[in-house]
């Protein structure tokens, strides 16, 4: 018999998980078993323990998830305390992941949160494969792109180019900037991945260097002058590190001098930090709203208790409130999540023969081909200096060049199409060598 507190704790969740409904996902199986499975089997990784991460950990813990892990490389700063509500003044200087995990575990009995105080790149790729679902509370395009490429690297396709369901690593991505935010779900192979829609991110505002050097008009111009031009002039060879207070202080004092020279008001230490680190003021309630959406979508994906968001929600609270869901589409040629072109080869084929074969392949018709495999540039048709360095590979068997890997991804670039319709392109190839190491299981279609 469950005691009454644990029953009351899952009361609201039970309304979603124990009853059938008309709007549920196709595989939904309501019942107490589902509730227990969410506790026992599902492993959720939260990336980031900052403004969104604190909210996410709390929301997920209250949504019935028991096995959580969180990864964050940062330590707590005083300026975090207004919104990163799991942290107290006495925590300043401690790793965010460790304090966040501890605080949520203190409040929500039964939940187990394992913190990782490190960079996302420090973990082996296999670390990420151990989770059922990955929830992202990040603030950079670069980190999202990295996690996306890791999650997509687990994806496999069957011989009909359909994603193999058991290799899909779902992601839920949240992001906020001031009063604006987004939440999206990424099911690699099914919905667009991060790279399919990279154009959604606006480019960073960058001032022309000559404006900074010659005609500064704003406080930000003075700060960027000190940061980008003056720093190198004075500290030759030493790299500026925005996380060193002395460095930031130096840039600030130089910016003040510059501003005085041009009669520009408004240079402050916090503006200096803001401009140099590209900080946009964070709003606690935007984080709360976006986190709530992300947590609910995580529950929906895992349990099937309702259809999921398709597939990108934007929230804008700048003037009034506007929110909208957009269904973005996949880039079918995406080199990160796309199936690529399946090519079966004899182990004896040389790189040269392989390149010739791509020219006649009906799905490729590629000429002027360059080939790269896991960071090894096997052949570069240009520039001449690289062509010369890679030419000797042409007569070697591709199988040897790929360290005798029976099946793997190879990337090629070249000109596709025929006649005057030629177009330069990048293609992903799923190379399979015939008769080596491939078992019936590997060749089977989606389970």
């Amino acid at each position: 018999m469950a005691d009454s507190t644990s029953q009351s704790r899952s009361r609201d969740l039970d309304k979603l998980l124990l009853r059938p409904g008309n709007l549920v996902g196709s595989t939904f199986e309501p019942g107490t078993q589902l509730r227990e499975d969410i506790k026992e089997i599902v492993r959720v990784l939260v990336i980031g323990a900052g403004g969104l991460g604190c909210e996410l950990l709390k929301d997920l813990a209250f949504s019935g998830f028991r096995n959580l892990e969180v990864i964050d490389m940062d330590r707590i700063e005083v300026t975090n305390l207004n919104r990163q509500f799991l942290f107290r003044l006495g925590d300043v200087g401690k790793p965010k992941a460790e304090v966040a995990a501890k605080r949520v575990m203190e409040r929500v009995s039964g939940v187990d949160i394992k913190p990782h105080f490190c960079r996302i790149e420090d973990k082996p790729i296999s670390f990420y494969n151990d989770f059922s679902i990955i929830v992202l509370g990040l603030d950079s395009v670069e980190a999202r792109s990295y996690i996306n490429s890791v999650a997509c690297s687990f994806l496999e396709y069957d011989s009909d180019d359909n994603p193999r369901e058991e290799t899909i690593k779902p992601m839920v991505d949240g992001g906020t900037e001031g009063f604006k935010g987004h939440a999206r779900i990424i099911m690699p192979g099914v919905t667009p991945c991060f790279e399919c829609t990279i154009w959604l991110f606006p480019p960073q505002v960058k001032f022309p260097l000559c404006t900074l050097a010659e005609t500064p008009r704003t406080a930000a111009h003075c700060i960027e002058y000190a940061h980008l031009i003056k720093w190198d002039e004075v500290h030759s060879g030493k790299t500026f590190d925005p996380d060193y207070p002395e460095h930031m202080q130096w840039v600030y004092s130089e910016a003040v001098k510059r501003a005085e020279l041009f009669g520009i008001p408004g240079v402050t230490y916090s503006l200096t930090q803001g401009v140099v680190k590209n900080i946009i003021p964070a709003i606690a309630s935007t984080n709360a709203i976006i986190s709530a959406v992300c947590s609910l979508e995580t529950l929906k994906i895992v349990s099937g208790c309702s259809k999921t968001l398709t597939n990108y929600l934007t929230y804008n609270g700048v003037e009034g409130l506007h929110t909208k869901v957009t269904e973005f589409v996949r880039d079918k040629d995406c080199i990160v999540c796309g199936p690529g072109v399946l090519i079966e080869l004899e182990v004896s084929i040389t790189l040269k023969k392989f390149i010739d074969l791509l020219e006649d392949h009906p799905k490729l018709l590629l000429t002027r081909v360059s080939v790269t495999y896991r960071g090894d540039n096997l052949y570069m048709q240009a520039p001449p200096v690289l062509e010369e360095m890679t030419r000797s590979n042409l007569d070697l068997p591709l199988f040897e060049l790929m360290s005798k890997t029976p099946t793997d991804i190879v990337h090629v670039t070249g000109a596709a199409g025929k006649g005057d319709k030629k177009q330069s392109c990048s293609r992903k190839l799923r190379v399979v060598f015939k008769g080596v190491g491939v078992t019936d299981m590997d060749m089977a279609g989606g389970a």
Partner: protein
Amino acid sequence: MIRLFKVKEKQREEAENANGKPTVKKQSAGELRLHKDISELNLPKTCSISFPNGKDDLMNFEVTIRPDEGYYMGGTFTFSFSISPMYPHEAPKVKCKTKVYHPNIDLEGNVCLNILREDWKPVLNINTIIYGLYHLFTEPNHEDPLNHEAAAVLRDNPKLFESNVRRALHGGYVGQTYFTRCM
């Protein structure tokens, strides 16, 4: 997806007993895009490229420009390129390694070229930048000054600018600044 997670959990336990796949080097989308840019480079005779770290590091390279016309004819100028994994979302970082008397390049090697900063777009590529850099030597421009004095001389006294450039190229002082020979 919970049924799938159950299956996977079982597989995970089994896999832990066996040996996991060794982790292998991955290429970022930025590296792949750069691979395409580099393999399609079509440089004029006046420009050449080299890869100090060998054929497998395309993210760091050097471009040498030898202008065959204009003020800087006969000079040799080397630029270092450093490409971020977020390329082409982020522009390459380019610095001039040769100390040069030029209105749009300062003595630290910072370059004022619009497509390197405010006008960078992901549809541009490495070839575009190299042509842009070459253009700086054939058409130095006093309206975007990074070297304030050189820009003023170019604007007010092109003849003097020309002789200053020659002096710098041959190695010598222009004002207080010494330039190493780069012919």
